[in-house]
């Protein structure tokens, strides 16, 4: 039996757009399991990112509950959510969102030192993570504007993982990258997942989605279907066909 890391019940999210209520998420019941690489797919406007930000404590739901372990995080205050995010979550964004005014190392340490007070340990872990994503030491002092998009996204992954989060949330992590650098980033995420890191990734790219073992398809704010692909293997045609069939079934 897989361990449930986070689950939602009747999760709903509505926005008022020009005075008209838009129900983006509708009564979603969802469980995220330890060690999974969960992919959330769907067309633009289906509510993928909204779901990701809601379950990760970045945004508050309109209705429903979100439970992490035995804690109902949907009842948390903003400050409690901040602590929850720093201790249990890591984030990788499409726009990368490194802080321009900080060096690459400082971008990572700013997040790392929030949780651990032992600077030596945090620095060591940062260096290990940098090495694992092929960021050499001479780049630590560079600023985000001085590196490529692919390098920046890999630094973003290092920052997301610096506090050894239970779940790594990734919102279209390859969306702003070219084909090769996008592939590098996917490989990095896959490697970390293979080492036991739970990942939840939003994407509308089939090539990216193939990396997941569990695919959720969202349409009009509800989970329309789910597909289990099993663990990722390179050039796995069967897996590719299974995903294609699933997406086809979902109306992709």
């Amino acid at each position: 039996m897989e361990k449930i890391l986070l689950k939602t019940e009747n999760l709903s999210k509505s926005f008022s757009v020009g005075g008209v209520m838009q129900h983006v998420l509708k009564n979603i019941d969802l469980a995220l399991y330890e060690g999974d690489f969960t992919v959330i797919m769907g067309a633009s406007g289906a509510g993928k990112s909204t779901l990701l930000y809601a379950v990760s404590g970045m945004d508050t739901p309109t209705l429903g509950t979100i439970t992490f372990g035995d804690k109902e995080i949907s009842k948390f205050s903003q400050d409690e959510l901040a602590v929850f995010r720093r201790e249990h979550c890591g984030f990788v964004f499409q726009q990368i969102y490194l802080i321009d005014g900080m060096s690459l190392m400082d971008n990572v340490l700013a997040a790392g030192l929030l949780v651990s007070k032992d600077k030596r340990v945090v620095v060591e872990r940062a260096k290990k993570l940098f090495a694992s994503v092929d960021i050499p030491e001479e780049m630590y002092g560079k600023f985000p504007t001085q590196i490529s998009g692919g390098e920046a996204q890999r630094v973003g992954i290092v920052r997301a993982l610096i506090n050894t989060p239970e779940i790594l949330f990734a919102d279209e992590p390859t969306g702003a990258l070219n084909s090769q650098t996008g592939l590098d980033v996917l490989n990095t995420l896959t490697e970390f997942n293979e080492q036991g890191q739970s990942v939840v990734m939003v994407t509308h790219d089939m090539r990216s989605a193939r990396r997941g073992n569990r695919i959720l398809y969202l349409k009009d704010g509800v989970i329309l279907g789910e597909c289990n692909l099993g663990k990722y293997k390179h050039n796995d045609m069967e897996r590719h066909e299974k995903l294609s069939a699933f997406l086809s079934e979902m109306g992709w």
Partner: protein
Amino acid sequence: MKKAFLIARSNFRKSKGQVISIAALMLIVGMMLNLWLILQMDYKKNFERHHDRLNAEHVAMCVNIGSMNESEKLSEKLTDVIENDSRTDEYSIDDALLMPGSFQYNGGDLNTTCVFLDKETAVSRSVGKIEIVEDSDETSGIYVPMIYKSEDIAIGKQMKITSGTYEFNYTICGFTNSVMGGSHNCAICEIVLTEDKYKETKEILQKENSIFANGAMFCSVRLKDVEECESYNAMLKDAISEYTYSISNYYTMVYQSRYISQMICAAVISAMAFLILLVALVVMASNIVNYIQENMKKLGTLKAVGYTGRQIINAFHMQFLSVSVIAAILGAVLSYLVFPAINIMMISQTGIPYEVHFLPAPFLITIGILGGAVLLTVWAAVRRVKKIEPIVALRQGVKTHSFKKNHVPLEHTKAPLNIALALKTMFSSVKNNVTICISMLVCALVLVFSAVMIENVIVDINKFITIIVGETCDSCINVNSDAEQEFLQIVNDDERVEKAYLYSNTATTHVNGAELMTTVIDNWEDVNNPDVVFKGRFPKYENEIAIAAKFAEENNIHIGDEIIVSSNGKEGKYIVSGLTQITNNLGLDCIYTREGFMRLGELSDVSYYINLVDGADVDAFNSDMKEKLGNNANMAINVDDTVSAGVTVYVQLMTMIVIGVLVLSGGVIAFVLYLLVRTRLGNKKQDYGIMKSFGFTTRQLIVQTTVSFMPPIILSTIVGLAVGCIVINPFMSLFLSSIGIVKCTFTVPAGLVIMEGVGIILFTFLILCLMSRKIKKLAVHSLLIGE
């Protein structure tokens, strides 16, 4: 222009808070500039208007008639001298009563030289007419200059005037406006009596055989050229030097002395206005430069679609100029709402009525100064837009910062994380730091000024008195020279007396055609305030003189120089031993030893300054002295009471100024910080979002934001306070130079300055925390996507 308008309108919409804050600063500047210009340009002109309207004199002189047979001779002499001087335009000579007098005012005894005039004579003089500005049904009594109108000096109330051993009681019938004699600051204080009271007063003096019993000649002269008034006055004084008791004033002296408060107020307002304008311009420039940096891409887009650099610059001009000019107009309008309150205070100081009315010149100059300053500032800040190439701007627009150094690397710093991040932000915000530093330096200077004024004027007035009034003591007794030995014997035998020394302000001396008020001393070591001679030393020998520093500077006279002095028709050479600063005669004074003065004239009466032992009753002592000396005592003044009556207005004025500048400084600092925090939150919205996303709490971000502003605030406050403490006395000297003070020695209260420094730092911290709370309202997701 239409295109520039479109850009300006778009910028307006996006930066309403910034527009409001700059408008608020400009409103304050507009208000203060207009107030200053009204005070500077029209308030003193009001003196000229009243002077012309009442056909007032340029030189006024009142000469006491020693004996009945002197009357005709004096009248003839005055007429002869005045008519034969080609500078005379018209004159009036009338009978009056001249005597020193004291009365209760502002809780103390006000001592002045009174010229009593019969009502009919006073209101009908061809030159130097006195105007009744407030009258009543009372038919017998006194009309007092309106400067003294107060709770105790009001229509229907009794007023007691003491002169020597005599006391005169009058019912107050009304108030007068006399341009040249409407205040004790004018040297002559003209008091109008109804016919019966005038006669009664004269009869009492005759009955008592007073030296003032024969009356006086009050002579008012209008000149063809007002510039000649000082030398004309000196000439007239010389001509009647044989008469023992006379008093005079002249246009420029009265003009300045009646407006000391107005000068102080105008100087403070103008200093504050220009300092706030400086802050506003720095804030404006900083905002523009920030805007250009943060909106490089937008500017590139505008250029790419065909907007010229000039059009973009025009848009900035339009945006800031329109805000500033509208705010300045509103500020100028606001000044007319504030001015009546200032006017009431000013009238109570000048004693000359002033009607508030719209003045186009100050209004236009205010708009002009502000408009010009804003135009130049905007042009200086925005001119580089012209050189920006669209493609470069578009590229830089994606990433606007060009960081050169990684300040406070987290890997190596020992500072806690939030402090380290705050310091990082601080080091990357050079323009903000400059704005903060300039604002806080200005604020610190104002704080030092207020601390010095609180300590030296409001809390303990003695230092102010020492500088402004010069020499003070407990009692001043003026006796006839014949009775000096008898007086000294009495004083020496009195156990209440600690010290008595000659300090006689009796006659005038002429140096280079100018009249200097003379102080005669026996021994300089006796004086209570050796700072009166602030450079060099008091005269010790008969060929020495100490002269006013202001006068010395204007006439290029230095210590050690030999100068020729004339008085009473005699001339003598004296060596300048020191420089004095006394405001009694607007910085026109000199000090001799008794022997030195005797070379030129005689002392018909002498004034002694007396220090009493602690706890001694000054009034009781003065009464005893008057009783013992009889008619030989011309005057016995309770100096403490006199000084407190005179300085109360300054204390009130300074209290208002200090409160005003402190509130204003606090407001300006709050505005500046609001603008800076707002800009910071706007520019770093995404950074805050990123940091919130990986777990920084709102409180941590507020602390970071606040702390990032604190080092420049603390540093510039400390530097500003330290510099302020050093420059405050020279600055105040500059400020007070027009009234004869060239070296101020105000106590700088270190404790109070430090307290104010700590207070302003805490105040800024609190303001920053409050303003940074806006971070709380911003959701992580919204911040990230830049909503």
